[in-house]
């Protein structure tokens, strides 16, 4: 009832420890509360003037309920410590994937240079080591089914490793509060066979077939543009795309610019260069997109201006 399915080599070990502590706690709890309820009934006050004789505490009992819990916690500590060591030391032949967190998306870069946003492809039954950093504030990389979590920092790399045991798609969450889009900073981990992964890497991110505006619509969701830019005219964290292309935008420095292909391209790759008036310079730079992806997004945005 308590834990999600386990999909990594260490998940069953984490789960055993969790259930051991849960059961030990439950037994202790039932003992304590059971005694409390029993005593409250057995010794309930029968007359307002009754004064019970004092009870001398037993040294033996006092010592035993210090010693026994101490032994129990030391057992649990030792178990947790050993497992923690395993969790912290990646096997030497791990497949390394770089993760970059920026509010509010996850970019992943593979050894061959392929980059994906929002989806993490990993081989099944092979240790994977994530090398992670943030471009802005603290984030945290959490995959519940792997039982892994590690904060992602802006001033140095942090690491986490896992070996996935089940193929499928699983949730990845950001778990260090990072602002308005924190609960939308999601990704999917796709566990597949090594051959499927290799096939994907060959073609990944290089979509040559989908028509540009349709491809742009997919990217609008995948790249998280949808978090900040509406299509229905509502200004959100960023300007709406409705009617944007071809309009004249006022900038924060008071000048104006016509929103053409070049301005859109600049806004995607160097968003802080010319910011629309009334908005904060919080958009992350999308330097990992290839040419076709940038063109697709531009065509998609153009479609929002009839």
């Amino acid at each position, binding site marked *: 009832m308590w834990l999600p399915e386990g999909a990594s080599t260490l998940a069953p070990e984490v789960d055993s420890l969790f259930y051991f502590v849960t059961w030990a706690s439950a037994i202790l709890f039932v003992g304590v509360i059971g005694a409390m309820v029993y005593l409250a009934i057995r010794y309930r006050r029968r007359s307002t003037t009754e004064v019970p004789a004092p009870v001398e505490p037993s040294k033996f009992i006092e010592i035993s309920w210090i010693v026994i819990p101490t032994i129990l916690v030391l057992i649990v500590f030792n178990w*947790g410590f050993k497992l923690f060591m395993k969790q912290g030391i990646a096997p030497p032949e791990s497949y390394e994937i770089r993760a970059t967190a920026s509010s509010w998306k996850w970019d992943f870069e593979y050894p061959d240079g392929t980059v994906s946003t929002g989806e993490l492809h990993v081989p099944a039954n092979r240790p994977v080591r994530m090398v992670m950093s943030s471009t802005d504030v603290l984030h945290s990389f959490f995959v519940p089914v792997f039982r892994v979590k590690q904060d992602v920092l802006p001033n140095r790399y942090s690491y986490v490793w896992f070996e996935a045991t089940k193929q499928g798609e699983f949730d990845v969450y950001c778990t260090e509060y990072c602002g308005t889009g924190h*609960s939308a900073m999601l990704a999917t981990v796709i566990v597949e066979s090594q051959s499927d992964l290799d096939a994907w890497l060959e073609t990944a991110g290089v979509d040559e077939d989908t028509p540009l505006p349709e491809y742009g619509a997919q990217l609008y969701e995948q790249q998280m543009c949808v978090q900040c830019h509406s299509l229905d005219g509502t200004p959100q964290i960023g300007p709406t795309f409705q009617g944007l292309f071809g309009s004249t935008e006022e900038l924060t420095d008071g000048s104006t610019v016509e929103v053409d292909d070049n301005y859109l391209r600049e806004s995607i790759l160097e968003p802080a260069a010319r910011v629309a008036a009334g908005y904060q310079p919080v958009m992350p730079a999308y330097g990992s997109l290839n040419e076709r992806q940038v063109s697709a997004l531009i065509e998609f945005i153009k479609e929002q201006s009839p």
Partner: protein
Amino acid sequence: MAETYTRHAGEATHSGHHDHGDYITHEKGLWSWLSSVDHKRIGIMYGITLSIVFLLGGIFALLVRFELLNPGETIMTAATYNQLFSLHGIVMVFGFLVPSIPAFFGNIILPLHLGAKDVAFPRLNLASYYFYLTGVILILVAMLVGNVDTGWTFYTPYSKTVGNSLLFVTMAVFIAGFASIFTGINFIVTIHKMRAPGLTWNRLPLFVWGLYATSIVQVLATPVLGITVLLLFLEVVLKIGIFDPALGGDPILFQHFFWFYSHPAVYIMILPAFGVISELIATFSRQRIYGYTAIALSSVAIAMLGFLVWGHHMFVSGQSAISSVMFSLITYLIGIPSGIKVFNWVATMYKGSIWLQTPMLYALSFLFLFTIGGVTGIMVGVLAVDIHLHDTYYVVAHFHYVMMGGTVIAALGALHYWWPKITGRMYSEVPGRIAAVLIFLGFNLTFFPQLIMGAKGMPRRYYDYDTEFTIWHQLSTYGSWLLGAGLLMVAAYMIWSLFKGKKASPNPWGAATLEWTHTGRRPDPHNFRQTPLVTRGPYDYYLAEDLFGGGDGVGDGASTPASVRKSTTDEDV
């Protein structure tokens, strides 16, 4: 043999005043309250402010839970939600929990427990209240000025991005911290220097031991918080790199500084609660606390060990593995003294005379809820498992079980227990018990589902969530309504009792500590006519026949006084 407290002739501490009314009636007018250096009046001012702050924090909580009734937007945007959960935490931690029991009940009861006429530094005490009030007002200003959405933990560098409102909140916390430090200093000196004759350390009520341990933590830990927020303030204003990597600082340094205070802070919140529970269980079992020395010393042990575990909030932060291991080990060790207390309290009931009045219902609720909080704390102290549970609802549930199921429940028990002594009125027992049950059930319905969804991976501080978690969120929200209803009920009948409650006798519970045995219905302005002489322990009911042999203390808590020692002119208030 029935040696009791005796009057020490010729040691009148004052004369005349007590003929002019008790501490509430002897002087009237708003200014006499606002400028009062009477610890009891200061305690009441704190109590009123704390109640309003708790109401505010509670409303934020209900709004947060309402939003979470469904995934996606329910009643507010993400930006508003993030501010609400942050303010809920800030208001509840800094505005309510840290001061709560010491500032309200500690102030009123500590000198009475010691046989003293006030605290050591009454003016410092009043100053402490005004520092607290200023801090609270600044938090409200911050709320109105801007967008404090950093969580109550203000981690950098994100907290640097929220602008001016951060400056107000850091100033608020800095100023309110002084209230805590002043109270701590006052209590330590009072306990050392102002105990009545015969009141040795092992005859101190355990509430006093709890306050003593708390005060040590307040004095040693709070300055670190002050310095931390000051550094944050300076970093923002002067743009020097301490915590912000963009300026060359280190965000993990902020976490170390922050938690170095904030972990001991949770012991500031719980140690006084432990003290209250000892008083309640002793009185309503009419039995000595089992293992008095263990309970007293475990409070001091917790206070000291509490400074060595802060890194358990940072297991996945990037701190070194060896640090994590050390912090985990010490975290387990600190669970042991708390466990000892729970076992000893239950053992106290053995061969006692258990009286299930409302304060005792809260004490029993505490045992239930705090035990769950404690064992879930052990769970998150397990290094390997905390990797999975950190920053999920499991942690949120854990700390609500200990802070609300612990401190708030104990505070409610204290409120009902000492209400007759503070106000001279009895609250009504039937609504008291009903509300206690509603609160107990509502609390569990609110927070137990959170343990489950946290273990399933539901992250905390999330505005939106996956539909697999909907049922748990809904159960939790319904629980919050039940809990809120119970708390509002308490407020309602307590306020009602101020006007229509039966007048209390000086010792309706048959308790054996000085606030009950040596004062009238409400204490005199200077507490005691003469300094009491103490010749027995605080829970030695069997040595206190005068309490039970007719007269005071026979009461069932609701009857009009029998033959009461009239030490005040009982005015019709």
